[in-house]
């Protein structure tokens, strides 16, 4: 399969890339690792006139902690994130990249490319939604910090404007008592998620859940925050009974489509079960971190 013809530029710095995106607004697509964009170009589902390859732009592949934030550069590959010593202290985030695609995909695919592509079954959005991360969207004119819960709008559709590039993703630093987990099921190694759930809980001194975030992928037109499940969890003492109520709430908010990965009832059941299982691990990790 051959993509439709396009022009290609490889700007040396971010300013030049943003200028090109402004001048060619609506005609250009940003190329990061290419493992989402290239298949779409080859299938001719997208036919941009211009690709702006950001591989030479420095400063987009750092993972750093500031006083109150963890910042992941958009061009960090899944493999880089998986192996980063800072990410090892964020177990929910650490759970995600090892299950994405296969080793070659993880060698080249990037977190920024993945979220900007916004496949409804991709893994990172669940974690970003659970953590209510912020997506940094830069254009020549502005820098917007878009909450994850406002970023993922619909299938392959985000709040990113045509002249913007995702430069970083910001998370809150992990406080004491916080723990999370991401779990998914897939039909076979390397497949897209049939369903995936990211759960993040914070326990107060008495062991009660005083904050919860639940992100769900694969079972709706777009990954979503399971707000009903979060409401069930906050204020409760961790227990399987509570987790099952949260799982039922998350399943109820899902809008799965029947396809080769299974019928609707099965997918809802998997959301419920994955919510329970990820919450069990999340709370264990929260206790270990208190």
């Amino acid at each position, binding site marked *: *399969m*051959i*993509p*439709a*013809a*396009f*022009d*290609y530029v*490889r700007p040396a710095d971010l300013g030049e890339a943003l200028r090109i995106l402004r001048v060619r607004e609506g005609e250009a697509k940003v*190329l990061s690792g*290419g*493992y989402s964009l*290239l*298949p779409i*170009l*080859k299938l001719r589902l997208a036919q941009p006139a211009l*690709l702006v*390859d950001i*591989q030479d732009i420095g400063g987009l592949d750092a993972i750093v902690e500031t006083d109150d934030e963890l910042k992941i550069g958009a061009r960090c590959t899944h493999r880089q994130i998986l192996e980063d010593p800072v990410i090892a202290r964020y177990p929910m985030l650490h759970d995600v990249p090892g299950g994405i*695609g*296969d*080793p*070659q*995909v993880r*060698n*080249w695919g990037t977190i920024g490319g993945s979220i900007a592509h916004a496949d409804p079954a991709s893994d990172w959005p669940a974690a970003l939604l659970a953590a209510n991360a912020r997506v940094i969207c830069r254009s020549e004119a502005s820098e917007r910090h878009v909450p994850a819960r406002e970023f993922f709008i619909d299938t392959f559709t985000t709040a990113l404007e045509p002249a913007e590039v995702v430069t970083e993703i910001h998370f809150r630093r992990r406080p004491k008592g916080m723990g999370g987990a991401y779990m998914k099921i897939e039909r076979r*190694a*390397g497949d897209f998620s049939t369903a995936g759930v990211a759960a993040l809980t914070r326990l107060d001194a008495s062991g009660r859940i005083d904050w919860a975030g639940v992100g769900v992928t694969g079972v709706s037109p777009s990954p979503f925050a399971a707000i009903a499940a979060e409401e069930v969890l906050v204020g409760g003492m961790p227990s399987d009974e509570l987790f099952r109520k949260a799982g039922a709430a998350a399943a109820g908010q899902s809008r799965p489509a029947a396809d080769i990965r299974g019928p609707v009832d099965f997918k809802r059941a998997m959301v419920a079960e994955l919510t329970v299982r990820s919450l069990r691990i999340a709370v264990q990790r929260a206790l270990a971190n208190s």
Partner: protein
Amino acid sequence: MMTKHISITVNGTVHEADVEPRLLLVHLLRDDFGLTGTHIGCDTSNCGACTVHVNGRSAKSCTMLAVQADGAEVRTIEGMADGATLHPLQQAFWDQHGLQCGFCTPGMIMQAAWLLATNADPSDAEIREGISGNLCRCTGYLNIVKAIQQAAAEMSAAAETQTGATASVAG
């Protein structure tokens, strides 16, 4: 038609070409450079038959543009043997019957080479995970795993001998 001039080092040799931006790396290797050892299987980044190394990282060359690899060092299956001496992985695939039809083999060997470069002594599970992006429809993978284990042992032993020799010189 807009073309880009690119320069890519493949198996140690600098190649130059004028290419359309939409040209895939695998087509550049096969059709322009005549390196047909890299196979095209699924053409959808599932099967891994087209796996090569780009700047030391294994990549599916059907999912990379030739222009993305401008300035890069690429290694293909043709760059593995040392003259008539097979690379330990090639020899191990032969010894362990790690192939039947052979279509997946170049990609499988390139992915295994990357795996061993990042993990010299992988477990059975790590090998299986490491080649999870490479499909073989003949072998059932058992002999492929054995071949990679054999090569890992030989390459580790060779590396130790080399280290030992260096140490004795230094001592």
